[in-house]
């Protein structure tokens, strides 16, 4: 069984992702940015995860595989993950908008599984 833990995921804008939109969504800059999951070094240590290790995030509505990078300084609190908006983060959203037109796109409950062995990169 892979090691699993619960987190709250915050997808959001980053300037790298914004630059990537103009450079082209199929270019490496954009793809790398939307595939990188930020985690505190405290959580990384606790789960034995090194930079670049791949993990699986599972929400009520979908699952994705991403590479972990440490968050900068004290930017993230423990127990919170951050990922740039994009194809991958959207796969974890549900179709229901609760009468608002807006799917719940931030503050998503996810289960994180540390993957046993490296897997090929997920592509959009």
């Amino acid at each position: 069984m892979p090691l699993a833990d619960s987190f709250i995921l915050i997808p959001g804008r980053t300037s790298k992702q914004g630059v990537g939109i103009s450079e082209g969504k199929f270019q490496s800059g954009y793809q790398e940015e939307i595939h990188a999951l930020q985690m505190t070094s405290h959580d990384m240590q606790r789960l034995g995860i090194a930079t670049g290790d791949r993990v699986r995030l599972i929400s009520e509505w979908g699952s994705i595989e991403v590479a972990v990078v440490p968050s900068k300084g004290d930017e993230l609190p423990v127990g919170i993950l951050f990922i740039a908006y994009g194809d991958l983060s959207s796969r974890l959203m549900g179709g229901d908008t609760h009468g608002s037109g807006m799917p719940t796109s931030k503050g998503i409950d996810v289960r994180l599984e540390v993957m046993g062995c490296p897997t090929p990169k997920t592509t959009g």
Partner: protein
Amino acid sequence: MSDTEDNGLSLKIVRDATCTFCGCVCDDIDLHVQGHKIVEAKRACVLGTAWFLNHEIEDRPSCLVEGQPAPLADGIERAAQILATARYPLIYGLSDTTCESQRVAVSIGDWIGGLVDTTTSVCHGPSGMAFQNVGEVTATLGEVRNRGDMIIFWGSNPAESHPRHFTKYSLMPKGMFLPNGRKDRTCVVVDVRKTKSAKAADIFIPIKPRKDFEALWTLRALAQDLPLDGDLVERETGVAIAVWQDLMVRMKKARYGVIFFGMGLTMTRGKHANSEALLALTRDMNRYTRFVCKPNRGHGNVTGADNVVSWRTGYPFGVNLARGYPRFNPGEYTASDVLARREADAAMIIASDPMANFSQPAREHLASIPYIAFDPKETPTTRHATVAFNVATYGINVPGTVYRMDDVPIPLRPAFESPLPSDFDVLQGIEKRVRELLGIVPAAAGTG
């Protein structure tokens, strides 16, 4: 002095060009243009520079039908056929094109009795709902620049999403009533992460995720000096009541307070209730001092989309025109819902990328129906489209009008002409053909 200069070495300089990458819509950019390429964008931020320097003319056909290059006329014909024969067609996107194109798209929606929705529904749509319930105490960015001495960013990270927000409008400028610029202002950031913006603030308040509603109502209660249980406040918001009390004292002392709010509120559980709480707090504060609020809008002309759809239909987004008159109901007529519920049987997507940004059920349904896509760039949405138009870029090749995030209309000053058609021209072609197919007599000149 003219806006455009040519120094004789084929370097053209376009002064005061408008950047349409984000809702700041900076209209002070000097562009250096060589042929079909912008080589320098003076005063643009990192996002604006990437926007201007990466929109050269790409060697791709202007029209693809079923993935194959096709004459433009064939694409227009196929698009019109799809829209005219659909039973529940959706028109969606619109936030990255001119008001002139938005207007034509709404007209098509009207002729075909379709749904018209914009990317507002998945950014500040919940705020749009809240405006209708509470109202908005608002201001232009010029007022903020000249008067705002207390600037609060709530669930918004302009340092990454609107990089010139601080320097051009909200924090750094020396204003009419703020001669010392940044020193005369207090900046507060409320967020779940210590973002880049938080690092520029005087006070950072880290709240628990999904607790914006509770935090905003705490402030509403404190504004009225209502007794609160300090332990409960701290447990719910993750922040000691003393911090909220201190913030309220500062807010009341401000001469002109401003709250900029972002998708940290609208995309999180609570959505329109979160925005409503913030609008109500702003309204409450006007009993004590002047306070205004503004959503930080993302796309360059998403505010124009709200304006155009409102003045054409009476509602800002999520409009159903199927009965011949407009009906508004977010959650029922919004794009994400009609796709995820598999209701729409055709779509026209203008300048947005739902195949990358929508939920999986919505994407799967969109991929299963005929749809038309417009974009200057190749995206997952254009790749799956039945008809894809590769169009000229607004602001860089195409003139027109856009609205800044504070509802101020701004003209575009294009840098160079494109051999590609504008979405405006293609949409006009589709509108004409749709009317012919539906047997709608062209309007007399001047009445359209």
